[in-house]
């Protein structure tokens, strides 16, 4: 080894020591050429000197708060004033420095901080300079104090960020070109904005074994930067203790402690909150880049919650579904069924009108022929033998068209599946989630009757979980054994327990009576029971006992199961006779796949209008292909009475048409032409029947009519409640056609 190399080494080590003990000394020593400065901007090379130098006081123009951040002052006397970059901002006491900066309109880079999760403060990316503080402080964990002078773009803060970024990138692989997060990666963006243009790391990067989290989440654990957002999400929002941190120091990894899958119905959300590409979507892996996708803001229809989603499509294909922020409904999470059902939209699609020939085989025909045959049969049968059933995924426009068409044919036997016999469509409070989804957070005692919110409506369950975590609300449950991800007392399995509570004999009554805002959540699975009127009257008496329904608080909630239910009851899709299926000669199924067709006469003519070849097509005589929710503009009302609209993201497949257009065309062929030709026309018709459906994105609360209900003389059976949803992952024709959902139910449900 030559002397020169030795000298070089010596000077390197000495410069490293210098760096450790006194940063300013190396910076003050320009002759030390071997210490390559990381700072790309020259003024950062001498941060302290620059800070000490008299700075020209810049007058910042007032900035608008970030992303429309609004400040809510619970107590006006608690307002404090801090200065962000010399600009005064008023915030309530208890806010962190980072939140104060957001209000002031300054975006602080962050990885571990997430507004809906607890504060970890371990990524150190959000370091800012605070006057009179010896070191830069992590703004996400530091509470703002009155008169604090926060500086976010000083050389010290910038240098701190550059240093943190260099450490983060030290063990982060340089595989952005093959990473699915590329283009929407926080680390990528922030390293461009705040990082250095070079790194000093020359060693071998660490690598971590990938974990198997199930069929939905793909892990590339080497990319993980240990922000622990996923761990906090799993424990705090999803309510499962599956994920955790193993090892410390450079051996730190995220994982399930033992080899197991992540069994949560919200597990897909860790894909969104992961700031890097460590957790990505398995079905979406290597399918598309995010900048190729067209985003369509629409509504989910796989359950009655109506989560706000964004459908990302490329060309004719739905590539992925991700959530959209809606504080009142789904916050920023969606369930796995919503997120991953999209491959069902590409399979088992009906694309041509078909007629079943005399040999029992289906034959593709033209629309003209198909409509002519349907109209001919419809005109031959007696009006009271015509029956129409709307499916779980029907939109309000097509349901009103179906009802109008059948009424003009002389029949009023039309209903929406899932509503049971003789549904209550008169009192809106009798089928809506009256305290609203976000209002559930105010409740302090929950009584779940015959509903398993975890599989019926995961977003509502997430709210209950949030409430239980926040104010230790008590939860009582009556129904078949099921698992909850919060502390829940199983009171019983059937109506017997309900009676005990109503009569005040049950120990849960004391909790109910002591509660300030008690909430009763009744599952829509009860609507299918024969003795539902008597059960509902018992629930009414419990509500009266616990003072659940008050002018300021309506805690008597009904949790619906399907997207079409609320709108169908608003539109009055109530059958005239109870047993119309048994006497039907002409059955019009509009996407209805879960109707019991066993009692249907064998000579009945069945028309199936829908988008998937699911259960009912096998009984159909004529198939009319319709468009799915991702392909049409439709109005849906969710379980809390908020009407929302879907927008078409992709074109329809094959020869399919919108549901209401098919019925409109059929009415013309049958000679009872419906009076609307476009969406505006059909919506003006809806405005006559249910004007609340047209007030989009607005919740129409139900008026409280507790005393209007007639007394019920029905006898209540002692049969225990049954679960309304057998398989969370497969509830409708789209999810039943989905391969991913089939994988999920195979791998996740069998484990339980």
């Amino acid at each position, binding site marked *: 080894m030559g002397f020169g190399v030795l000298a070089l080494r010596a000077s390197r080590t000495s410069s490293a020591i210098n760096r450790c003990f006194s940063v300013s000394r190396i910076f003050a020593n320009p002759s030390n050429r071997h210490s390559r400065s990381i700072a790309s901007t020259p003024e950062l090379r001498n941060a302290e000197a620059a800070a000490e130098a008299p700075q020209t006081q810049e007058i910042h123009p007032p900035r608008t708060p970030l992303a429309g951040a609004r400040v809510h002052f619970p107590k006006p006397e608690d307002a404090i004033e801090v200065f962000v970059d010399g600009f005064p901002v008023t915030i309530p006491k208890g806010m962190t420095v980072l939140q104060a900066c957001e209000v002031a309109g300054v975006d602080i880079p962050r990885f571990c901080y997430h507004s809906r999760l607890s504060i970890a403060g371990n990524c150190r990316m959000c370091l800012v300079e605070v006057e009179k503080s010896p070191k830069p402080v992590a703004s996400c964990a530091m509470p703002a104090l009155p008169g604090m002078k926060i500086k976010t773009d000083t050389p010290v803060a910038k240098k701190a960020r550059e240093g943190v970024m260099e450490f983060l990138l030290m063990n982060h692989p340089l595989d952005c070109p093959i990473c699915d997060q590329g283009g929407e990666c926080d680390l990528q963006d922030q390293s461009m904005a705040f990082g250095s243009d070079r790194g000093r790391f020359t060693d071998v990067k660490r690598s971590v074994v990938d974990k198997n989290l199930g069929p939905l989440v793909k892990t590339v654990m080497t990319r993980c930067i240990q922000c622990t957002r996923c761990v906090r999400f799993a424990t705090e929002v999803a309510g499962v203790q599956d994920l955790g941190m193993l090892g410390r120091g450079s051996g730190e990894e995220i994982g399930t402690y033992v080899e197991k899958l992540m069994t949560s119905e919200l597990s897909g959300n860790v894909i969104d909150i992961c700031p890097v590409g460590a957790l990505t979507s398995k079905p979406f892996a290597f399918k598309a880049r995010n900048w190729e996708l067209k985003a369509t803001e629409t509504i989910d229809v796989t359950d009655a919650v109506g989560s706000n989603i964004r459908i990302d499509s490329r060309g*004719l294909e739905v590539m992925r579904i991700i959530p959209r922020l809606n504080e009142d409904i789904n916050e920023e999470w969606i369930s796995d069924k919503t997120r991953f059902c999209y491959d069902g*939209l590409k399979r088992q*699609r009906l*694309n041509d009108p078909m007629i079943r020939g005399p040999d*029992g085989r*289906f034959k593709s025909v033209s629309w003209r022929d198909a409509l002519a045959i349907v109209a001919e049969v419809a005109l031959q049968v007696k009006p009271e033998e015509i029956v129409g059933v709307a499916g779980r995924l029907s939109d309000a426009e097509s349901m009103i068209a179906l009802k109008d068409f059948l009424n003009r044919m002389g029949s009023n036997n039309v209903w929406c599946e899932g509503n049971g016999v003789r549904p209550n469509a008169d009192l809106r409070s009798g089928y809506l989630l009256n305290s609203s989804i976000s209002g559930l957070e105010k409740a302090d005692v929950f009584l779940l009757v015959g509903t398993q919110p975890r599989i019926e409506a995961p977003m509502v369950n997430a709210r209950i979980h949030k409430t239980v975590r926040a104010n230790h609300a008590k939860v009582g449950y009556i129904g078949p054994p099921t698992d909850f991800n919060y502390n829940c007392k199983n009171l019983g399995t059937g109506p017997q327990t309900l009676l005990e509570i109503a009569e005040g004999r049950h120990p849960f009554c004391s909790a109910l009576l002591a509660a300030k805002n008690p909430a009763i959540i009744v599952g829509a699975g009860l609507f299918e029971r024969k003795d539902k009127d008597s059960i509902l009257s018992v629930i009414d008496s419990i509500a009266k006992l616990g003072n659940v329904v008050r002018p300021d608080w309506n805690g008597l909630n009904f949790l619906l199961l399907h997207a079409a239910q609320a709108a169908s009851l608003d539109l009055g899709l109530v059958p005239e006779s109870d047993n119309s299926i048994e006497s039907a000669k002409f059955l019009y199924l509009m996407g209805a796949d879960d109707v019991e067709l066993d009692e249907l006469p064998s000579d009945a003519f069945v028309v199936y209008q829908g988008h998937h*070849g699911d259960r009912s097509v096998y009984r159909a005589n004529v198939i009319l292909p319709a468009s799915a929710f991702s392909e049409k503009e439709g109005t849906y009302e969710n379980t809390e009475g908020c009407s929302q609209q879907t927008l078409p993201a992709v074109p329809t497949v094959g020869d399919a048409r919108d549901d209401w257009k098919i019925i409109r065309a059929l009415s013309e062929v049958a000679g009872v032409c419906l009076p609307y030709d476009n969406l505006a026309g059909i919506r003006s018709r809806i405005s006559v029947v249910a004007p609340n459906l047209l007030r989009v994105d607005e919740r129409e609360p139900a008026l409280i009519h507790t005393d209007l209900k007639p007394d019920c003389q029905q006898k209540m059976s002692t049969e225990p409640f049954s679960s309304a949803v057998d398989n969370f992952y497969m509830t409708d024709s789209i999810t039943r056609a989905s391969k991913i959902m089939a994988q999920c139910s195979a791998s996740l449900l069998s484990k339980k």
Partner: protein
Amino acid sequence: MAKLLKTAIQAIREKGIANIVKELKEGEFVRCLPDGNLLQTKIHNIGGRVVGVDKFGNKYYENLDTQFGRHRWVEYGDKRRYNASQVPAEWHGWLHYITDHTGDELLMLKPQRYGVEHKQNFSGEGDEYIYHSKGHALNPGQRDWTRYQAWQPTKT
């Protein structure tokens, strides 16, 4: 003429009459009667040396005694429907005086991994032989742009 006759008699004497008839039949000399081109090639063949035969049955002749530029020619294997596109690539260079390597020599140099089989030009010979570009609707190898899988009614 006398020389031609003399050569013929000599050939009959050497090979026997039966072999000559067989040769005449295999060479499809009868086709020469309506086809002047073929007749001319057959006459040209006399004295020519067969350099090689390719896999389509085309025979390549050379006669250095004839006029320069007419000293290499081909007798097509298909006597009824022949055209210049039937000459495969490896023989094209030799036939057109581009190279002195015969097709058989060039074939030994040809890598086995790639290179499509030579196909003659079938233009105007019916739909299946007309060339359709990659995106053309009639190209059998075109991509399937259907992005959904239709329900199959036959399963009932």
